[in-house]
């Protein structure tokens, strides 16, 4: 495309010398490295542990139980037999990880375009509803087209839902945080209506129960680890892994990704460089929403199969996606690892805890506390830069330090 400037982008270190906004974002991205996310997570677990300790429970035992409950002890004796508790637990953790990877990417992609997509939850729900609708109402199709139709329609719906926020930002400058919050709650209430009494997606068998029908067999994703009836791990896991690769490839290997990142670094400079900023805002938001919609679609076709009114407030994967993306510094690898961490927390705290150590109800809320602490500390750029500077002071002869000093 002719819009691209001829000069290749500077490296963050070069740019840091010129003191642009882009440089500071890039610096923070690199400065974090692996140290800061790991440190953040450790601080969060430490403070969470203090709460556990203060309320008369043993935090070490609690964390051990959560670790085992999440099936992470599987690495000590790996097996593919899901009759083994650790293997089964791990498959359930990976099921959560699948969802969280995609919800994390939904936040991360918008972030790279300089927008905060707080509406992952709503986009996820919209995907879920559409997948349920296609899965139930289009019965009689053969499996592959049915699955593709359900997943495709849901992904598209998620993209459109987020696209509203992108469109409003691009055309009238409405702040995406406010509009995505509103879209979240609209999606939540629409769900209450869809599955509620007399709602269009309520099951036809029992009109007193506000739950949808099960999707048709032909719309269910194949399960490759465990049994379908026992909520085994479905092939959507590989779709999520592939999404990580696609996310990386779009951002780093395509013109679209280049433009998105340019707008994220500095919209005015991007506009000056001939990039259509408005188009990119809408596009980035829609792609973000598509990731979340895909998450909803895979959950519906992969293991939920139906959804009800009472499931709506209990579900917060879209919000957890914010913590996942932030902890993963909005990169593909980071998001994958963050999703694994929070997936393990999600499943490990609901399950297999001995009540004399910590009750599942407490552990579940501990997850929220840890999420909150992670997000709180990750958000503190100054703290991160301070740590970065400390590291640089500790290693004055490092190659990067020499470059920065030059």
């Amino acid at each position, binding site marked *: 495309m002719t819009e691209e400037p001829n000069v290749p982008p500077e490296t963050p270190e070069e740019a840091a010398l010129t003191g642009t906004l882009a440089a500071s974002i890039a610096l923070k991205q690199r400065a974090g490295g692996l140290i800061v996310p790991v440190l953040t997570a450790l601080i969060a677990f430490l403070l969470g542990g203090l*709460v556990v300790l203060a*309320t008369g429970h043993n935090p070490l035992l609690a964390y051990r139980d959560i670790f085992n409950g999440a099936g992470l002890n599987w690495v000590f004796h790996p097996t593919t037999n899901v009759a083994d508790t650790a293997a089964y637990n791990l498959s359930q953790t990976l099921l959560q990880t699948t969802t969280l990877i995609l919800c994390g990417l939904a936040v991360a992609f918008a972030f790279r375009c*300089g927008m*905060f997509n*707080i509406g992952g939850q709503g986009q996820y729900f919209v995907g879920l509803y559409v997948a349920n609708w296609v899965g139930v109402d289009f019965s009689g199709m053969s499996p592959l087209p049915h699955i593709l139709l359900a997943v495709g329609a849901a992904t598209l719906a998620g993209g459109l839902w987020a696209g509203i926020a992108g469109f*409003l*930002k*691009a*055309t*009238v*400058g*409405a*702040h*995406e*945080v*406010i*509009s995505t*919050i*509103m*879209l979240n*709650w*609209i999606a*939540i*209430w*629409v769900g*209450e*209506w869809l599955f*509620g*009494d*007399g*709602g269009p997606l309520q099951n036809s068998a029992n009109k007193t129960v506000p739950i949808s029908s099960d999707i048709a067999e032909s719309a269910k994703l194949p399960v490759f680890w465990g049994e379908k009836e026992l909520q085994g791990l479905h092939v959507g896991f590989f779709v999520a892994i592939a999404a990580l690769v696609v996310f990386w490839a779009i951002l780093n290997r395509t013109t679209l990704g280049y433009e998105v990142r340019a707008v994220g670094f500095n*919209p*005015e400079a991007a506009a000056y460089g001939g990039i259509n900023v*408005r188009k990119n*805002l809408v596009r980035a938001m829609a792609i973000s929403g598509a990731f979340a919609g895909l998450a909803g679609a895979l959950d519906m076709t992969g293991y939920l199969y139906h959804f009800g009114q009472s499931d709506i*407030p209990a579900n917060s994967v879209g*919000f957890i996606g*914010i913590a996942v993306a*932030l902890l993963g510094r909005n990169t593909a690898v980071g998001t994958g690892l963050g999703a694994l961490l929070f997936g393990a927390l999600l499943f490990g705290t609901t399950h297999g805890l001995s009540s004399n150590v910590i*009750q599942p*109800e*407490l552990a579940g*809320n*501990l*997850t*929220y*506390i*840890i*999420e*909150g*602490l*992670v*997000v*709180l500390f*990750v*958000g*503190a*750029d*100054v*703290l991160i830069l301070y740590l970065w500077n400390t590291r640089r002071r500790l290693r004055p002869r490092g190659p990067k330090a020499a470059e920065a000093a030059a």
Partner: protein
Amino acid sequence: MSEWTQRLENPVSARLRDPGVTGYTGLVLGVLAAFLAIPPIEARTTTWPIVVGIVAVALGIWTTTRGRRRLGIGAIVSGLLGIGLGILATRSGTGNLEAVFNASLVAQTFAFATPLVFGAIAGMFSERSGVVNIGLEGMMLMGAFWGVFGADKGGTWVVGILVGGATGGVLALVYAYFAIHLRADQIVGGTAVNFLALGITGYFFFQIYHGEYVPAGVSQIPDVNIPGLKDVGFLGPAIGHLNLMIWVGFLVVIASYFVVFKTPIGLRIRACGEHPRAADTVGINVYAVRYGCVVLSGVLAAIGGVYLSDGFGGGTFNDNMTAGRGFIALAAMIFGNWRPAGAFGAAVLFGLSSAVALRLQVYSASASTLFNVLPYVLTLIAVAGVIGRTVPPAADGKPYSKQ
């Protein structure tokens, strides 16, 4: 962050945003609301007149807060009359809707609106000083749990309000430190506050009350029985015995108007929100003002939460009790254009839609849901700027670094 996009003007939407256009549209919709229920169109339910009427009132609030006061008030009155006439017209046909629309609807509207009023005023203080507060929901939730805890352990609702308000203030202080001193992204920080509050309240609710309900007989925030009004036809059930916190909420709105717009302190707060560098130059301690406002915001939001659990909720708590009310409060503040009166008007309007939603449940679940969506849809339309322009404080959300 979005400053540059705000400058992109679109001539068509700019004309639609003109207060004159919104005001007259409101007037017309108000009339339409009344006509929806009578013969030519004759909607069989009151749903449509009310929806259209509420949109008219919303447009009126919008117009009032953006300069065309008289026209705006006209649209509000037109919308209210439209609702009233629409109801009258349908009520003659369907008698049982009388149970939905009566004097106690007024009382219930205020009951639903009060947490939103506290939350919206709380958000206004924070944002007027230049700190975006997405964490209202969390601060409100803290107040809801620790307020009822305080009332339970302290033996009186006064302790409940003090404890609840204090915990909201402490959480706000933590947020303020990250947002002001560490210059963390305020949206990220607010999201963290919401997670933290959800975890902390849920954790201690289970730890202290073992997942059971808070024991019955907790000292509740009392109702105010106005002696003379008891037997007055409409006013008696409408405002004769409202909860104490509803009246306090009215006072908070009036007081905050005077503080923000009529006192030197208010001028300083607004200066920090509009142009912190200039405020700093004339000797205002920007950090101190922002800390003060954010903590006040936390306390107010939490008191709204205490009312939710210990007044409105009758001395009970349940997990995630606020259920999005903090976000509706945020919406009310935006809708009211960061002004106390506007925020109050929007909060009452959203309270009305909640109250009607609750009453409609008996007749039609889907109509009930329609009313619950209304605040969010209206706010989405509002921030879209299609019917007017929201003008946040210029430095809202931007961390300030002293030089």
